[in-house]
């Protein structure tokens, strides 16, 4: 269990490295595969609440370190209405929220129905992006939502969700290598059938 938890943390850190090389698809309204969020979501459904919170903190903290913009700069007397940035650390709370959402369907995953978790990962990414965009609108004022932004959110969620079976497959392989079952009820059912 400890070995598996430790490997999920390493997997999340590796996702940060790979994310650096995943470009935005300009033809799909600049949508992208959010690998970090995907790995976190898939791991969140396979671990306990404490490990999920550790993963959420690491994921949110490093995501903000990667994406946070610098201070405005310039003379405040000239730029009287400076555009606000998102505060460093907001992603930690969003990751935590997504993780709790994923843990809500953990019983289904433990029964071997990983497909529901795969679908929920897409919904969670969509909620995550929508929440992020809503926060941007809240701190900057003037609610602006155009068609392109909406499509960007939808395409990003779908693209990310399509890769979730691959991440689950990796997690199953890792758990069996660590002699740890991430869906024990499904395993018991299989043994009973035999």
């Amino acid at each position, binding site marked *: 269990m400890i070995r598996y938890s430790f490997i999920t943390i390493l997997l999340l850190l590796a996702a*940060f*490295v790979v994310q*650096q*090389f995943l*470009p*935005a698809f*300009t033809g799909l*309204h*600049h949508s*992208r595969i*959010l690998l970090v969020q995907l790995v976190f979501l898939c791991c969140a459904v396979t671990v306990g*609440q*404490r490990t999920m*919170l*550790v993963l*959420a*903190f690491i994921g*949110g*903290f*490093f995501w*903000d*370190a*990667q*994406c*946070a*913009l*610098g*201070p*405005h*700069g*310039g*003379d405040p007397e*000239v*730029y009287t*209405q*400076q*555009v606000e*940035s998102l*505060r*460093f*650390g*907001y992603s*930690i*709370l969003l990751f*935590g929220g997504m993780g709790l959402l994923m843990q809500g369907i953990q019983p289904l995953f433990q029964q071997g129905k990983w497909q529901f978790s795969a679908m929920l990962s897409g919904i969670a990414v969509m909620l995550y*992006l929508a929440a*992020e*965009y809503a926060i*941007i*609108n809240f701190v*900057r004022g*003037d609610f*602006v*939502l*155009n068609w*392109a*932004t909406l499509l*960007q959110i939808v395409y*990003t969620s779908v693209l990310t969700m399509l890769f979730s079976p691959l991440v689950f497959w990796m997690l199953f392989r890792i758990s069996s290598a660590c002699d740890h079952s991430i869906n024990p009820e499904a395993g018991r059912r299989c043994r009973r059938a035999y």
Partner: protein
Amino acid sequence: MKPLNLIALLLFLGGAVWALTRSDRTVREIQNAYYSAMSPFLKSGSKMETQARAFLGETHHSKALEAELESTREQLGRLRLIESRFRALEYENVQLRHALDFKKATTFDVVAARVIRRNPTTWWQTVEIDAGSKRGVGTQLAVLSNQGLVGKIDRIDNGGERSSVLLLTDEKCQVSVRIENSPEVGILSGQRGGFDGDPMLRLKFLSANTSVHSGQRVFTTGRGGTFKANILLGTIDSVEKGALDSEALVRPSVNFADLGAVFVLLDADS
């Protein structure tokens, strides 16, 4: 909820509050540490990308490349001559300004850089370039292309070889501007969610009865401490008059979809 889970949740919330209350300086230090750790991967990634590009470049017809090289060489020679003449004139200008006791001589230098990554984040419009503090690049410096203003330096990597540029099309990149043949000044910035197609910029705080019209060019005023004066930004596309003030949409002079080489404007003293 189990007591241990409750403690973990409280610790998590405490950690989040700790992160949310960090100052800008601490956040920059955290980012520096993060990108230092990422640096070996980013370097090898850039190297692989360069090799792939070189491989693809080789597959192009060599004669076309040769002709292009020849023309570029000719242009380079011509530009070198112009630059040497420009330097002499600049020196003469400084001397004359000094003789006339002008308060400040505006000298500057540029660093050429290549765009190595586009839009690395979801919501911010940024690119990464292959020039950093090792070549004198610092934060808040203006970045130009041969078509006009591109943006400003937002972050420098710890290794000093890369930096991140906040593009003019981002809502957070604000520029104090003037309109040619007009007394109007305002603040220009990008628009939220303006990724697709031709991004337009929004010019705010024009007077209510402004007489600006489409086709007029927009330049930096030089006020605000970030951008030097008289850098081209774009042309007025349309004007929206309001009761208290007016706004205009500006078509940028730079083609942001095709950014290859850019120039970071340095102060001559740096």
